[in-house]
């Protein structure tokens, strides 16, 4: 590695920064974030059972969930419900039809 004369290198002096009144918003809306991918979960329902029942659980045993058939399912973002809807089939896969959204959903 080549070395440089000590006189060429000079120290970097950092200027003291003072907090000032906030200026204009840097991000006016969420549009710069539109391309960000987020992970969503579709929660069909839930159930609770004791550890004893869980340890005794067997294959083919039926577990009734807390949601009635006509109740919507939840679409979750970071563990929070951002939409509700119906579970549908799209070709050979599940799909989620939106029925209920917060107003507004925009961030």
């Amino acid at each position, binding site marked *: 590695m080549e070395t440089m004369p000590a006189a060429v290198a000079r120290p970097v002096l950092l200027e003291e920064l003072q907090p000032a009144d906030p200026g204009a918003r840097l991000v006016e809306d969420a549009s710069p974030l539109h391309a960000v991918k987020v992970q969503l979960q579709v929660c069909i329902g839930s159930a609770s059972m004791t550890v004893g029942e869980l340890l005794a659980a067997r294959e083919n045993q039926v577990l009734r969930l807390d949601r009635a058939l006509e109740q919507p399912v939840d679409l979750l973002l970071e563990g929070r419900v951002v939409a509700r809807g119906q579970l549908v089939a799209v070709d*050979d896969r599940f*799909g989620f039809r939106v029925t209920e959204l917060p107003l507004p959903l925009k961030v």
Partner: protein
Amino acid sequence: MAPGSIGPWVADADARPLRGWDAASLARVAAALEPVVGGWQAAWGLPAPAALTVRVADARDLDRAAWHCVGTSGSGRAWLGSQPCGSGAEWLDSPEGAWARQVSVLCRSDLLERLGDWLRVERQVTEGPPPPALARPWSGAVIVKDLCDAGWSLVLDADAAFAKLPAAKKARAPGGDPLVGAADALASRRVHLRVELRACELQLGMLQSLEPGDVIPLDHPLSEPLQVTGADGGVELAGFLGRMDGHKAVELALARRRA
């Protein structure tokens, strides 16, 4: 757990019994020690002091005299401490008389031998003070002071002293609960399970533009079971979606192991 394994455990050798001293136990140690000390005093023509007093040693006790140890670590040890020359009885510890020092050494060696026999440990004697860690609130050493007019002290570590006490009966506390396994102890604890489809990814912009009626295709085949997971992620089962008594339901299936 095997030594060297990773875990929150410590080596068995690092754990010491949690034993405390009470007045009755100290008195029993003194009573057990009296014949040994009495025999030694009689053999050397030493005046027998009043009854031996045994108490828990503190750090100052271990920091004073010159010490000789009999016994080895782990077997129960005793330390005999003598005062610095000139501070004890002159006939025993006089710096002036060579014969007196000789007698003093022999007298000390005899007591250490008797203690070794009493403790049933090797008679090998080493020089050095008791470890400072022996002066501790639990399972600490005990000390007997003034074995003779020269002010000799005797320190017994907890193993040596407790070995002289009658063995405690290993009886279960009256009304003690029977032992149960961890699974039985937790059997009545409730676990919250969530039934979910495989997670999907969506651009934030698309999520924000959703409107009622829109359909999001999910990457979860109809033929595959749903995920049944514990609220804390500790349970991972699978289940096929169905209905039961007007509710959504899942038929439990073996969960596919993650690669």
